């Protein structure tokens, strides 16, 4: 069977797992093209006005797969960890297949991979999902283990600083153990951390090439995906628990970035109308900031046209960070209220 996978939301996090699994089960995988204006517009048109930008883009990707595949796989991530507390993902991720199935016109059949680790282990979910394609439990098990292993290698590559596209290419070309060339980044003069979900950080259309922009401004870019998962957990545990798993990781990463002297500034990238992040920003700005004093700038992206905004804001922020750094080097850490900028940029 030809199975389409939309290049949006958790694609950036779990695609190698899905792909390996599906291919090992004897399917062909098609991915929608990179986000473009056409995809964005299709998504915006088919969605409710005030749903978050990330979901709109996802819907655009689903629509782009019409006629390309026999069915489309949409993950339903209900909970992704089991830690004795309640844990969820964002409601929109929980209802993603429902949205795709009931609100988009003319899409092929939607198959959903339900991940609800609170209720059943990942293996059970995968076995259920895979029984759509084969009856043979042995090959399911084999595919599952293989997929897990590929995913691990992928995560390791992301941790080294590869972007998803590069990491996937590496996985294909040399089974992942080939060149360990880290990203071609200049020896750091300035280090800016980008705090956000992978689908905002790595979708270069959505964020208008923010990573490249920062690099051109002479900054090394640090991402939450480059941090060790345990480190994030440890940092997050200093704060009152959030039951949104991905958001808790954001708080953990924020805490690390804000405290770490190596990091000169943090940009918190937020999708317009994102539900959880509207509160998480507040938690980060109020609670987490208290313990660290690196400058941080929330940056909201929405879909309305006009490009110059984001560039100007980021430039201003980087300038500020740079000035602050030279001053600090000169005056050996005079405690100073880090200036705060906030911004809203449009696509």
């Amino acid at each position: 069977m030809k199975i389409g996978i939309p290049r949006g939301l958790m694609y950036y996090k779990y695609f190698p797992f899905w792909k390996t699994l599906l291919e090992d089960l004897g399917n062909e995988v098609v991915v929608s093209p990179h986000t473009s204006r056409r995809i964005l517009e299709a998504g915006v048109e088919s969605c409710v006005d005030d749903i978050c930008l990330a979901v709109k883009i996802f819907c655009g990707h689903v629509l782009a797969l019409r006629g390309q595949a026999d069915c489309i796989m949409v993950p339903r991530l209900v909970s992704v960890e089991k830690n004795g507390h309640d844990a969820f993902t964002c409601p929109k991720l929980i209802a993603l297949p429902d949205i795709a199935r009931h609100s988009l016109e003319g899409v092929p059949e939607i198959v959903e991979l339900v991940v609800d680790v609170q209720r059943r282990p990942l293996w059970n979910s995968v076995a259920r999902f895979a029984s759509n394609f084969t009856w043979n439990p042995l090959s399911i098990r084999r595919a599952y283990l293989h997929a897990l292993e590929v995913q691990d290698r992928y995560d390791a590559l992301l941790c080294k600083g590869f972007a998803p596209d590069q990491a996937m290419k590496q996985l294909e070309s040399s089974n992942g153990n080939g060149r360990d060339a880290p990203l071609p980044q200049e020896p750091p003069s300035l280090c800016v951390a980008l705090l956000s979900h992978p689908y905002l950080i790595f979708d270069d259309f959505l964020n208008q090439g923010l990573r490249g922009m920062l690099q051109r401004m002479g900054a090394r870019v640090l991402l939450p995906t480059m941090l060790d998962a345990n480190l994030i957990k440890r940092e997050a545990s200093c704060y009152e628990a959030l039951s949104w798993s991905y958001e808790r990781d954001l708080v953990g990463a924020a805490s690390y970035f804000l405290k770490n002297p190596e990091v000169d500034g943090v940009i918190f990238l937020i999708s317009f109308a994102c539900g959880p992040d509207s509160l998480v920003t507040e938690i980060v700005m109020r609670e987490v900031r208290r313990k660290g004093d690196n400058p941080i700038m929330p940056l909201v992206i929405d879909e309305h046209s006009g490009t110059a905004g984001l560039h100007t804001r980021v430039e201003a922020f980087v300038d500020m960070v740079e000035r602050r750094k030279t001053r600090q080097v000169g005056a050996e850490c005079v405690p100073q209220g880090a200036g705060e900028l906030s911004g809203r940029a449009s696509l």
Partner: protein
Amino acid sequence: MKITFPHMGRAYIPIQGLLEKAGLETVVPARPHRRGVELGARYAPEFVCLPFKSTLGDFIDGLEKGADTLAMVCGMWACRFGYYGRVQHQILRDLGYEFDSILIGKDDLMTVLRKFISAMPKKKRLRRIVAAIVMFRARARLVDEWEWQARRMRPVERISGSADEVLSAFFTRLETAPNLRSVRRLRREAMKALAKVPLREDRRPLKVALLGEVYMVLEPNLNLELERGMGELGMEVHPVLTTYRWLLKPFRILDPRIELTEAWARRVSRPYVRYVLGGEEHWTIAGTIQAAKRGYDGVVHVYPLTCMPENICRSILPKVTEKYNIPLLDLCFDEHSSPVGIRTRLEAFGDLLERRRSSTPAAGSG
């Protein structure tokens, strides 16, 4: 200890009864109004949902009136509501207010109870608690009953607004009703007074289900008196969620129907939303289906801007209403919504329903 708590429709009447009967001092903030909401919006995160802003405004008002303890329900749900209390109290502390916060649901039950009980007068505690719960239930039921009466009468009254006028006086009196006997007396008096309101027997009102995010459904000052407006336009409003249901949900044992209907709603909405999203999504979907099956004339779906579960419902609802063939009106509110705009859309919707009914005379008399 002077407790304040945020508003949600007329829920404050039973809650106040509960706390005062238990011997605690309460401060009821002013009913949400433009300025209060704007005040809340000023300090709240920009993109947070409207109930957050409004309840933050309530807290500020309560604190300014001298409250020293803020109570709020919260929990570990998938939706934002679970974090309201925590973030709001943080914002208020940063603003320089000092208070004790009781987050019901996050602090475990015993801690919360102990806090309440230790603030109660020393004598006859058990009796007070029982009396408080009885009072709570009595007031909640009466509020519910009156609200339903108003909904039924509004579309058929001769002088529009007369039922509301009668009832608003009674609501004010209920706020200060000291004991069960006076609650019962109020109920009798209200019945008599309502019987005198002149009605037009010839009019057959449109039946419209009202569903969506619970706060927007229940808070007249935020939904711009939606129920009243709909009533004046000749619609008999049937909200799926009522203050009574919302209040008694945590005390299921007091009314087993709540649990049963909850399970029913989940089951009916399953083909459309398979998992719990943490809001009222199951009621929105199940309510629509039920409205269609019972032959209502239409459904009105209300929610605050960027509300997650209701946004998802809104994406799905067109499919549901198409399948069950029932007209739908979506109303999305934020702090800038204008009464005129809402009114215009309601009028157009009312016309549509009238036309639809006259073209299919058999339907609509559910």
